[in-house]
């Protein structure tokens, strides 16, 4: 099937404005008759729920944490992009658009990226109006910094806590609507199934994580804002609860999954220290503004203290290989370059899996105080975890699984192929192509929630009779039975291995076979091994406790069960995409210098997968990508 992304036609500069005008509106007095279920209250979900509530819709919002303020968006450190051109360094909506399309290695839809770039400026205005304390200069105006993949300074930030501050802004907006009564909040509530009636998404089945009660919530549209799935690698920079569950359940009910294999490995994480480890910690990419990345030129030097390695024996490999972007080369390129150095035996630290991130020169240039002012909290965090002082010895970094560019397939209106099911933020596949540029995820989450969904959802609702599906619908009853059934099954197995053992095993397999580098062999091997782990899981997992109570093991078990199915889909997608692009590096396809080699003739499309059954091969649908404004070109950062 050839999929239609419903991109507007005509000049790109007018595409969003024209589309916005062409879409139908819902009469203000009718809005309160519609109920919208928003799952997830991170940047995408909280901003969507707040904006929709403000417009007068009836909103029910759900999250698995105890409060919307704890969504994983809170962890974003570095910043948020916008094309304001405040620093007068040549930025424009067009340049942000250009950088994003190129950064994504020409695997995203032009119109969507244009819209994102256009509304990016409104986001900054909105957040400042909410009282988000962005960094300012002494004249009182907003300050910016640079991020990977861009040569202009367009990243707005709030110390090293940008995600936190933006989320608190969106959280305050949703809190205001909760008080006003337009949004009803259900914290500690996990969505475990999507209910589809006559082909349309009309309800969700949830588990109350405190009481264990399983119940259905009906509505007129469902908006999934449930974030990314990088915990399929077990160790990642994501929060412990991040899962694929909500979108995977929707996929099993018919929603297509777009580009699942496009995953991002972030170059600046604290290297792993031991097997017991439960997560990897990111240090903001903004550190690369002032930190220089290097490894010893000679293998023998790797075990020596860094300060005993003379200047001429240090290889500043990013500056050497990519002179125009240097340490600010995009993430996929920097990550691969680090892996390459370590694979060649020049890595530093435990296990040789690390490269230096060195502030010596900038401390010399600006003084320790300036560096402390800019990145103090990151240095502190590094010291807490590694017991090393980054001002005195260079920090060590290594790439780690970080961001999911893939997600449910959506059209230009952010609606999936299931009418009534909208997907926002990291949970959808749109805008980032095969690689996301730094500081663009926060931008996308808020763009979707504040400035896209309020318009596009009306276009669906205008043709929908409110309250079509009630809780007594047979599909709702069936969904409740299914969810109760799998909960019971998990509790009954009483095997010998813990949930953690299974997700660790899966994650290791995924990292080794579908991580920073992939090959036909590694992927084929993973596809053969995953079903066996899955089978063992359903025979031998041990989940203690009961269903009708607060039971964290049961929560983990459910999420792991979904990862065990989803993992196979990522590998299949990576296997079928017989090219390299962005974060997807197939070792078979590289230039002589090791750069990723794209194949536009055969693969300039979105891969959207249709679920056919757990042990069956999914069906591939394609949405061809057209590049009318930015010409397909080899992506070079040299």
């Amino acid at each position, binding site marked *: 099937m050839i999929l239609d992304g419903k991109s507007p036609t005509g000049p790109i500069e007018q595409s969003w404005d024209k589309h916005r005008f062409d879409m139908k509106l819902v009469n203000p007095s009718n809005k309160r008759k519609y109920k919208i279920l928003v799952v997830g209250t991170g940047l995408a979900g909280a901003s969507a729920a707040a904006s929709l509530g403000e417009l007068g819709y009836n909103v029910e919002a759900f999250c698995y944490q105890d409060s919307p303020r704890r969504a994983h968006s809170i962890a974003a450190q570095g910043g948020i992009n916008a094309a304001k051109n405040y620093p007068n360094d040549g930025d424009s909506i067009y340049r942000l658009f250009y950088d994003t399309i190129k950064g994504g290695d020409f695997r995203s839809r032009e119109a969507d990226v244009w819209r994102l770039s256009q509304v990016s400026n409104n986001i900054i205005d909105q957040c400042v109006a909410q009282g988000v304390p962005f960094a300012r200069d002494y004249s009182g105006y907003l300050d910016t910094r640079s991020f990977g993949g861009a040569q202009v300074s367009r990243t707005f930030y709030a110390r090293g806590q940008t995600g936190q501050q933006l989320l608190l802004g969106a959280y305050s907006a949703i*809190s205001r609507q909760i008080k006003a009564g337009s949004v009803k909040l259900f914290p500690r509530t996990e969505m475990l199934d999507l209910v589809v009636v006559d082909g349309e998404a009309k309800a969700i089945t949830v588990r109350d994580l405190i009481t264990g009660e399983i119940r259905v919530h009906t509505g007129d549209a469902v908006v999934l804002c449930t974030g990314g799935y990088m915990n399929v690698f077990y160790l990642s920079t994501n929060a412990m609860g991040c899962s694929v569950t909500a979108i995977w359940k929707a996929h099993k009910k018919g929603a297509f999954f777009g580009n699942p294999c496009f995953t991002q490995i972030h170059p600046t994480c604290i290297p792993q220290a031991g097997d017991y480890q*439960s997560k990897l910690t990111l240090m903001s990419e903004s550190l690369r503004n002032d930190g220089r990345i290097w490894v010893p030129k000679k293998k023998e030097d790797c075990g020596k203290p860094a300060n005993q390695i003379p200047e001429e024996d240090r290889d500043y490999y990013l500056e050497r290989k990519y002179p125009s972007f240097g340490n600010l080369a995009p993430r996929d390129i920097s990550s691969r370059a680090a892996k390459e150095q370590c694979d060649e035996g020049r890595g530093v630290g435990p296990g040789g899996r690390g490269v230096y991130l060195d502030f010596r020169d900038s401390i010399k240039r600006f003084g320790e105080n300036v560096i402390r002012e800019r990145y103090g909290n990151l240095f502190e965090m590094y010291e807490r975890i590694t017991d090393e002082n980054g001002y005195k010895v260079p920090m060590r970094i290594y790439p780690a699984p970080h961001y999911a560019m893939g997600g449910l397939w959506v059209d230009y209106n952010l609606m999936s192929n299931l009418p009534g099911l909208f997907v926002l933020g990291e949970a959808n596949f749109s805008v980032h192509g095969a690689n996301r540029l730094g500081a663009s995820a926060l931008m996308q989450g808020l763009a979707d929630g504040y400035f896209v969904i309020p318009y596009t959802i009306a276009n669906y609702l205008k043709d929908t009779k409110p309250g079509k599906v009630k809780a007594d619908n047979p599909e709702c009853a069936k969904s409740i039975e299914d969810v109760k059934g799998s909960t019971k099954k998990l509790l009954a197995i009483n095997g010998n291995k813990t949930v953690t053992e299974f997700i660790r095993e899966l994650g290791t397999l995924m990292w080794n076979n579908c991580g920073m580098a992939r090959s036909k062999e590694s992927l084929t091997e993973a596809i053969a091994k995953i079903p066996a782990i899955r089978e063992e899981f359903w025979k031998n997992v041990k989940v203690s406790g009961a269903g009708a109570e607060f039971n964290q093991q049961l929560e983990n078990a459910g999420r792991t069960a979904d990862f065990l199915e989803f993992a196979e889909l990522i590998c299949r997608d990576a296997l079928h995409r017989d090219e390299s692009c962005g974060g997807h590096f197939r070792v078979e396809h590289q230039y002589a210098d090791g750069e990723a080699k794209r194949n536009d003739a055969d693969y300039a499309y979105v891969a959207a997968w249709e679920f056919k059954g757990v042990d069956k091969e999914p069906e591939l649908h394609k949405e061809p990508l057209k590049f009318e404004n930015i010409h397909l070109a080899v992506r070079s950062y040299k």
Partner: protein
Amino acid sequence: MSAQTSEHKTMSVKLIVWRQKGPNEPGRFETHVAKGITEHHSFLEMLDVVNEDLIKQGKDPIAFDHDCREGICGTCSAVVNGVPHGGQKRTTLCQLHMRKFRDGDAIYLEPWRARAFPIIRDLVADRGALDKLIQAAGYVSCHTGGVPDANSIPISKPDSDYAMDAAECIGCGACVAACPNGAAMLFAGAKVSQFAALPQGQVEAPERVAAMIKTMQECGFGNCSNHYECQAVCPKDVNVKFIARLNREFHKALFKAKAGTFTPVGE
């Protein structure tokens, strides 16, 4: 990813941990030993080890709240040896590492204890009352869209830094748990001060502070009597000066109410 656990010395610690099945069940201390812990384990990773053991023995693992494990989401919450978050300065429990303990140490572990935070299970407490405080008025009432250009209202760097110092609060509730009165003054003070320092928050400043103070009382939080335990345990170093600011803003609001230029909510 390769690992090098063999390089590290291991230790054992004895945990004396609060177990409670539900809000209305009686609680009690239980003792467990965590073995094979290295100095690089975080406190929560040490608890993971204990839990894996308990699960294998067919026992209920210790329930504890956590999510980001990076010190920023504010989810983790337990009192270690009598101190919320375990006593390392500017550090949440998930960022506390076992190198701060010694082989053979006995460690007491309890949930946040405060009237406004009922216990859900073991170390998990319900901190929904903090959300209620924000819902009362912890926001600037601007609609989506239709706001002025961000640079149209310059804000001096000191003001913006002051607002950011206050805004750093992660809403963990340690301040409440540490306070002998179970007060949420540091939390509320931080929010009120953030907006009080910015032009955006001015118009509804009196309503905000009045509504938040009223809600604090309704939720069962106590009052500040200047113990400063809150600041001592706050993982983000939120300063008690924000409590003073809260009081000042409240008095300003009362003054305005007297002058008839402002009517507190609900009166």
